[in-house]
């Protein structure tokens, strides 16, 4: 057990904004000068909305059933767990039979699987991918690394608790969890969806400021809009 050095104080200097994102003047073909503020001009700056459920419960249940039986996973592997996902496509586990498929673009995915430790750098990408997925969307964390840091408990660059940053619907414990455990996790997630409790996206929208504060606390060079549409 390593001793903690009490004298150590981490540096809290702010990181300067990337050159590309700084406001700048551009000369138009007409010779006029216009101001470009990249983060405002390039991106939509709307906040995420809390989307209500369907008017009637029957419809919402029906929808939830469809959602649970059509889990489209974003093909995004973060840690060692990415390798545990691959067997799910093989004849031995065959996740397809449960309506689970992989999509290459966040726009078409409804489930983000954080498959292992998440370095700060990857976290940034994961947040972006998550925010770009359409609602309702679900997050599943794999392995102890996403739960409490796992073996990266003293790493300088790895987050320890995923749900500080993203609304997690389901954790699958293990280091790493085997594909069977993953399948079990999916089944549990399906139940949760069907029961209408998997409203992580709305949670995220409701507590947007808290999530953002947490995210920005660890991602020092925040170089994207607050919400990635």
């Amino acid at each position, binding site marked *: 057990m390593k001793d903690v050095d009490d004298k150590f104080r981490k540096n809290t200097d702010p990181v300067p904004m*990337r050159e590309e994102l700084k406001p700048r003047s551009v000369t138009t073909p007409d010779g006029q000068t216009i101001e470009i503020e990249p983060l405002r001009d390039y991106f939509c700056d709307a906040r995420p909305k809390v989307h209500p459920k369907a008017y009637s419960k029957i419809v919402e249940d029906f929808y939830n059933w469809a959602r649970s039986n059509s889990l489209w996973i974003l093909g995004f592997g973060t840690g060692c767990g990415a390798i545990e996902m691959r067997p799910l496509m093989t004849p031995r586990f065959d996740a397809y039979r449960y309506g689970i498929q992989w999509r290459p673009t966040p726009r078409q995915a409804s489930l983000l699987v954080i498959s292992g430790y998440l370095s700060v750098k990857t976290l940034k990408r994961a947040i*972006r991918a998550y925010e770009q997925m359409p609602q309702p969307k679900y997050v599943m964390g794999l392995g102890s690394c996403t739960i409490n840091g796992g073996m990266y408990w003293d790493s300088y660059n790895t987050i320890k608790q995923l749900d500080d940053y993203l609304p997690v619907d389901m954790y699958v414990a293990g280091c790493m969890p085997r594909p069977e455990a993953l399948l079990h996790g999916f089944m549990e997630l399906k139940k949760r969806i069907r029961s209408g409790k998997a409203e992580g996206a709305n949670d995220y929208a409701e507590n947007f400021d808290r999530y953002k504060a947490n995210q920005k606390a660890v991602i020092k060079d925040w170089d994207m809009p607050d919400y990635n*549409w």
Partner: protein
Amino acid sequence: MVSPLLILVAGLGAAFLLGLLRDTSERVAFYVTVAALGFMSFVALSWTVSLALGQVQPVDIYTADARPPFAINLRMGLPEATLASVVALIGLLSAVFMRRDLMRLGRQSMAVLLVLIMALSGLIMTRDLFNLFVFIELIVIASAGLVLLSQDTRALGAGFKYLIVSQVISILLLIGVIFTYHANGSLNIDDIAATPMGFTGASLAMFLVLIALVLELKPFPANGWALDIYESAHPGFSALFSAASGTATLFAVLKLFEASGPDWAPLATGIGLVTFVGANVLALAQDHGRRLLGYSSVGQIGLVLMVVGYGADWGVGLYYVAGGLLISHAIAKAGLFWLSGMVKARQLTDWAALRQNPVLVVAFATFIAMLSGLPPFPAFYAKWTLVHAMAEYADYPLMAIFLIAALIEAAVLFRWFGMAIKREATLPLAYNLSHETVVLIAMTAGWVLSFVWGPLSGFDNLVTVVPFLFALLFLPLDILPARIKNVIAIAGLVVWYVTSTGGLDPLRMIFLTIMVLGGALLLLASFHAKGRRMGFYTPAMLMFAGMALLVTSTTSFQFFAAWEFLTVGSYFLILRGANSEPHALSYITFSLGGAFALLAGFAIAAEGHYTFYLEDLSEVAPELAPYVFVLLAAGFLTKTATMGLHIWLPGAHAEAETDVSPMVSGILLKAGLFGLFVLVMEMGRQELYGVDLTVVLVWLGAISAFIGAVLAAFQEDAKRLLAYSSISQMGYALFGLALMNHLGWLLAMMFAINHFVYKSMLFLAVGGVKERTHTKLMYKMGGLITLMPYSFVSVLVGIIAMSGVPPLSGFGGRWIFYNAIMTTDLRLPMILIFMAGPVGFLYLFRLIHTIFLGQPKDELRKVKEAPFWILLPQMIFVAFLIAFAALPGMILQRVDGYIGTLFGDRPLVWTGRIIDSQYGTWNPVAIWGVIIAVFVTVLLLLVWMNHNAQRVKQFNIVFSAERPFKPQTTHFAWNFFAPYRKAMGFLEMPVSTSFWTGVSNALHGTAEFARKFYTGNGQTYAVQLLLFVIAVYLISMGASS
């Protein structure tokens, strides 16, 4: 009447009078000189007018009251009077032009000038051989004296070389004269003519006389000395030397060749042709303005000499043709030399200084047009007559050489003109009011001459053709603001359209509508232009005039004149573009080349008859018909930019101004198509060496359609892309036309209409974008859809229409195409057409995607929609396209009926708005109905489901992990079809370009090499001269034995 002798007397007398004056009274001396020249001009002019009006008869004046051979006689007939007028007037104007230098050098120089003019007049009038010699020697002495006027020290050397050569010539001439006298017993030209000497070895004397006189005309290649004079002498003198001396000497030659009889004529023809060709080729390598003028003089005089020889038995016709050429050359060349006096620096590019004074630019253009034989100037009629005469005698090789040389000459001149319009001068214009006045008088004289010459031609007087006059009207109007001129132009076009539609068949009607009414529509976009827009309306209206005349023409002459009008007008229009100089040059070169092919074709078809009705093309002699077909087709294919003859098009269309591009693409190409229509309608199928020429056309069309499309897909420049697409589309039209069946022609017609509409629309849209973004490169744009929605809509409609996707009108073209090919035996060319279709998608999608879709550039984030006036015609086109797609019958049915009368069949059945063919059905309304119904339903469904979509910015896109930070780096645009290029890039090999570049380089190389022949050494020149004489003698003896 005053005695013509007074011309000589006045000159000499004034010269002597000058000798009596004091040295200091230059001013008085100058006025005496001008007065004398004025008097000479007056006498000559009064004779000209009286003779022309028939008030007096030609007179012969005998000196010493004796008859030849014991006395000299002078003659004053109409040719003599006219040329004497020209000489005297040029002398007068040159004197005014040279005022400062004449005053500087004092009365002696003025006396010399007077003597020169006197001698030239004498040379024109005299009928005595020895007198001829005397005048020539006087001219030599006077000229050598005037060369000294120049402040260029090099002129001294040039003058001395001139003297050396003159000495040699005078020796030859004197010997010739004396032996001629010995043989004939008389020195009188008429006496010699009475007993012509055969062209035999014994007639060496005659040969010497003739060759000595010809040598005075600076024949190629024995003319290095003359070029040096042109280059270094005072421009006022060069004007005299080229215009007046050349004219007078040529007339002397003409007299002698007339006297010597027909046997000698080939000598003149041969030397003339060689000179014309040689001078023009060598001129290619010149970048010195005055030397170029010198080459041009030599070439032109060579041309007249050739006419003298060739037209020996034309009688009055010879005087008409040669005179026209000679006088217009004299005016133009004098004008140009005078202009060169106002341009201080010597390079061709320095003529850009003329731009400071638009009137001088007009004058420059006039002179260039006069020299290159463009309508309505006399040389145009002369060219027409000459080529027809050659056709009559079936001298086809001669015709080919002549036309090629004429083309080279035009290329040289227009290259120069392009430089003057587009380059930057190193020195400003040396403006001088009297100089400008002199130049303007020359220009006016040119126009007056055309006006006088036209009626004499026996054809229409082109100067008085209404559309042409309308175009000219804009010259004085150019001081008005562009908008007012635009209103006048549109009104003029509409009025012309309304008044000239009567009696046209539907085919011509549609072409006329596209060309004139379409032009008016496109001119709406010109309201966008600010300021005065000098020099736009005259060429534009000239082009439209040409097209209006083209469609309504009935004879080959009218057709050809109209063709030249529209070519020249469009050339000036294209030249206005920002970087268009080289493209405009290649355009005019190819176009004139095509025009000359037409000329040759018409001439051969007419077998020398000057008036030839277009419908008589169907009755051309069978053994000539295929060649006529080939020539005419080549001419028209140049205009439609068929593969191989296309290399002028992309640059010309791409570099033209925003509103000019649609004119030259949407409208001008139709002129070629119209020509082809006339051609195949009248001539039908022709076979050459067992090959059906229409099949060749089918192949050419198919190749153009395919390669044009492939090349379009590889362009980065939006307007170039559209330009290549035009090549492709014209390929389709040509293909349809050459199928030689009803539906094929209907297809061509459909493409003519469609291509006009959507290409005009696209060019305007792209032009509008360019107005805002200041670039044509597509990869520098992107994401403009939200900023320029209307432009986007017009491009969208345009590309759907062009790609042939239902329901827009391009589909109609495809449908007719399929029906047309069902009835033809040709199958293989279809493959290329089939390939071209989908390739069309490539470039069309690229066009719309890289400009309007994708990611925007920072600097373009705030651009505005294209200007209203550029959008307006586009929106009209959009409306038309949709209407035409839904109700194609409103236009096509009439054309279909008309074509039916030609073929006597009826492959399409029009039931209401449904069109049935033997093979299938096209129900445009039902297509629209179904598509709109489905589209609206699906759209409503989507809106119902996704009405609450969050509108996001363009850069809110998903990334894999790393993300770009600037949208422009994410715009996928450059080399858009890289994979396609990998597979099909071999088609991009610039075969045609290499070929034509090779031709051009070879010519330039030849010129560059050959001009080294002129070493600058006076002795060498003299040797060359002697060798030339010997060579000509040997060749002509060999030819006659």
